[in-house]
């Protein structure tokens, strides 16, 4: 690819007695390039240096990235396997003793076998995450289905990316989060960002986003809060949480009405336009304004700018997706690109900003309840046959489709599931309706947790296995562009920790299923199996090799042959991935959030992130710099709302919904709607906002409605303002 406008040749600073290991950040989907500083005498990671040559971030890093290396040799690392000695202390950090790997693995396997003997294969479950490498994601799916032979596997991507996946699949026939490389963003003429606080969640996108305006392009932001991104937008569509579908339909209505549509493109490359035209006909600016609370003038102006823009990119993120109609929201915003034909060419397209590090790759390799590697589906007999054949198991041994992440907790409660193998996730903080989740975990007969810190979820486990961090192992991830990149091992495995893939192969052996796993002796072996198994699937990695990734600074999938360079831009041939090659413009009637404010709960609660923390905060809350910058969650309230409740800045109040309550200090700020309050979700225990959130699920993606529910503030009798 040609050099970027921002690219500069800069030599790296190398300190004496040190080497630099070029790798990528462990956190969000940007997967920024960085160099880890390794002391060559101790072989320990001691710092970070920018990596100026990686085209996505060109050396830039957010505060999480700068300090990410500090988690590797952190004093909180678990050094040896832990076995619970006192079941009555479940849910606390107490009641564990250290054990050898032999003892821990023996205990796990004997419990698994005993439970399966008594209650059937499906009594076990696996719950994983997508902040791990493609190799681990793939192996986890195979581990559940081949080693444990259970149908119950799902992952925390249900809370993160599944609505984007479902919406993009429905509209475009393929779920690659971005149809363009990130290096296109600053070159477009109009950037429409919906439900994305990119400044705090994907900060290293910002130099490109600001450049759109620096060039005279437009920035349109749809968000209930005046985020650092919305602050500088040309138009800030300050909608009520949970009303995106009406806004998107309203803009499509205006694009059609104003003649800003590409009739040739619609005729030749899409289906569904007429039905959609009919549905959006009622979404006049006045009607949309009534639902969303955004002024008519702003809606009209946004549609006009988007319609007139020679090139435009629509981007969306969790604000849009974490709703009980998240899938519809994604398709509705994608409609904007499809009716105007602004997709399938450079500088125009759609993109979702991936939250988790490998949110993209993690949903391609078969760790979803309904999915097999290469985006194959479990309800497609041909797909099942292909993968069973690749794995060397009889077709009838392939477990059936399971249930989604949140639904698994219900099955634990009713004892359908009696054991959980948890890795790379902290659902006790990140799932909705936490009181229910905590009870579910307590009701398990046996729980294993793999983590490198004793997370809030690990505190519910019977066995905790210490695993390596991202900087102690090789592997690949697929970033938010669809670019497959290399993570490199920078130091040896910490203390007695082991990589997840090593543990899973060891358990498979002991379960008597070793023959399907023992040929996998390194991450590269696993990657080569991904290549073979994904061949012919939609997410085809066959042509990607470690060497090619190194040569090209990453390879975009699909990459079908060894000579194939990969596809930074999708649909350049205007062929979409539905069988007829056409995209689908979706007719989507509006429905309100699952829970609307009423007299008892008059406010709308929405949740999100702050720039200093990542997901459940298990990692970032332990990094001194990040902790100091944002130590506790704050409840953002508009000054007029604060006056109405008689509460002051910094006052401790109780926030309550139908599912739970928690106490927060108030942050009074005008940059939020009067009818909405906001709390970030990175904290555990009694500070978890997910004690309050609504588990209403999207019917297609099974993603919960984190972004909108009814809430009320309860003022404490004695105020509680902190002075001095």
């Amino acid at each position: 690819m040609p050099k970027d406008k921002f690219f500069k040749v800069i030599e790296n600073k190398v300190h004496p007695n040190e080497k630099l290991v070029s790798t990528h950040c462990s956190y969000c989907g940007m997967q920024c390039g960085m160099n880890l500083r390794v002391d060559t005498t101790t072989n320990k990671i001691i710092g970070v240096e920018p990596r100026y040559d990686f085209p996505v971030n060109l050396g830039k890093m957010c505060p999480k990235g700068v300090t990410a290396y500090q988690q590797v040799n952190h004093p909180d690392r678990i050094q040896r396997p832990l076995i619970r000695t006192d079941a009555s202390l479940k849910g606390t950090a107490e009641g564990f003793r250290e054990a050898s790997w032999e003892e821990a693995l023996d205990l796990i396997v004997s419990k698994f076998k005993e439970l399966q003997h008594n209650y059937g294969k499906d009594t076990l479950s696996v719950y994983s995450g997508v902040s791990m490498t493609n190799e681990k994601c793939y192996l986890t799916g195979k581990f559940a289905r081949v080693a444990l032979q259970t149908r119950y596997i799902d992952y925390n991507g249900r809370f993160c990316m599944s609505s984007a996946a479902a919406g993009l699949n429905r509209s475009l026939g393929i779920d690659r989060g971005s149809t363009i490389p990130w290096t296109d963003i600053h070159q477009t003429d109009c950037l429409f960002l919906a439900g994305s606080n990119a400044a705090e969640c994907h900060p290293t996108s910002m130099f490109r986003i600001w450049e759109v305006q620096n060039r005279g392009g437009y920035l349109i932001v749809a968000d209930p809060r005046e985020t650092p991104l919305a602050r500088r937008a040309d138009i800030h569509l300050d909608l009520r949480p949970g009303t995106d579908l009406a806004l998107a339909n309203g803009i499509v209505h205006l694009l059609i009405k104003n003649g800003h549509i590409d009739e040739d493109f619609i005729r030749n490359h899409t289906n569904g336009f007429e039905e959609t035209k009919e549905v959006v006909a009622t979404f006049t600016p006045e009607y949309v304004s009534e639902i969303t609370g955004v002024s008519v003038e702003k809606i009209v102006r946004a549609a006009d700018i988007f319609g007139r823009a020679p090139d435009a990119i629509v981007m969306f993120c969790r604000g849009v997706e974490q709703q009980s109609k998240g899938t519809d929201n994604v398709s509705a915003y994608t409609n904007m690109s499809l009716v105007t034909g602004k997709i399938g060419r450079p500088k125009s397209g759609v993109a979702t900003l991936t939250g988790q590090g490998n949110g993209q790759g993690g949903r391609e390799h078969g760790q979803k309840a309904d999915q097999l590697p290469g985006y194959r589906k479990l309800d497609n007999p041909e797909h099942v046959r292909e993968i069973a054949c690749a794995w060397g198991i009889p077709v009838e041994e392939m477990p059936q489709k399971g249930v989604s992440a949140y639904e698994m907790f219900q099955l634990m409660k009713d004892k359908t599931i009696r054991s959980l193998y948890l890795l790379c996730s902290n659902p006790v903080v990140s799932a909705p309706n936490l009181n229910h989740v905590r009870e579910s975990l307590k009701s398990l007969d046996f729980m294993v947790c793999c983590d490198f810190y004793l997370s809030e979820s690990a505190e519910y486990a019977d066995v905790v296995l210490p695993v390596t961090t991202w900087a102690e192992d090789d592997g690949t991830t697929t970033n938010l562009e669809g670019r497959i990149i290399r993570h490199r091992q920078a130091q040896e495995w910490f203390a007695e920790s082991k990589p997840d893939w090593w543990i899973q192969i060891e358990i498979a052996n002991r379960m008597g299923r070793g023959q399907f796993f023992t040929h996998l002796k390194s991450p590269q072996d696993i990657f080569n199996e991904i290549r073979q198994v994904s061949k012919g699937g939609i997410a085809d990695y066959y042509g990607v090799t470690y060497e090619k990734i190194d040569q090209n600074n990453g390879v975009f999938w699909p990459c079908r042959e060894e000579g194939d360079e990969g596809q930074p831009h999708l649909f350049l041939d205007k062929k979409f991935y539905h069988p007829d090659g056409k995209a689908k413009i979706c007719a989507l009637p509006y429905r309100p959030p699952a829970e609307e404010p009423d007299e008892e709960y008059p406010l709308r609660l929405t949740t999100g992130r702050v720039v200093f923390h990542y997901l459940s905060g298990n990692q970032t809350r332990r990094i001194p710099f990040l902790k100091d910058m944002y130590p506790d969650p704050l409840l953002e309230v508009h000054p007029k709302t604060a006056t109405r409740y008689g509460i002051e800045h910094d006052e401790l109040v109780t926030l309550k919904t139908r599912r739970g309550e928690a106490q927060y200090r108030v942050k009074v700020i005008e940059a939020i709607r009067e009818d909405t309050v906001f709390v970030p979700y990175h904290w555990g225990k009694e500070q978890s906002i997910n004690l309050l959130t609504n588990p209403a699920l999207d019917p297609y993606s099974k993603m919960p409605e984190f972004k909108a529910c009814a809430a009320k503030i309860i003022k404490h009798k004695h105020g509680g303002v902190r002075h001095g």
Partner: protein
Amino acid sequence: MGKQVLYIEMDNCIGCRSCLAACTQCGGHDNRNRNYVLDVDPFISRQTIPLMCFHCVNPACARSCPAQAIQIADNGAVLSALVEKCIGCQNCTIACPYGIPKFDEEQNLMYKCDLCYDRTKEGIPPMCASVCPTNTLQWIEEAELEEKRAQIPLANGKWTASHDPDVLEGETNVKISLPGILQGKQKLF
């Protein structure tokens, strides 16, 4: 390569404090940041601005130092106090109009931004500008600075940045573009 300068576009700042985190990673900074970020009006908006040492051409900190412990490097960087000379009087912390020099009680020593002199002398950008994800902090050549100056002029022919200000400390080696750089920006369509 021509002379390079630190250039700040205040309006771009999102308050992420990457510059602070990165500052702690520079050699000799002892894990302490020497730059700061301010919330402009925290009850109203999320507007933040970085506060960096401006590396004044005629710096008050150095002028006020009775021990001549504050040296000015060849690239204009105003360095931290020299260990062997600093007498811990804290004149510099009082003299600086921007509140940049800080005092380390344990070491009885002033410390401040040194423009990552160990990097900038080798043509490597300072850590803060390297990592700044928003291009608020940029390490650019003087020719680029001239281009920016031409792009965003005020009606009086001057620009929205700190050009030869007569106030405070006069000419600085770090250049600033104040909020409002997009005012009057010609739109593409």
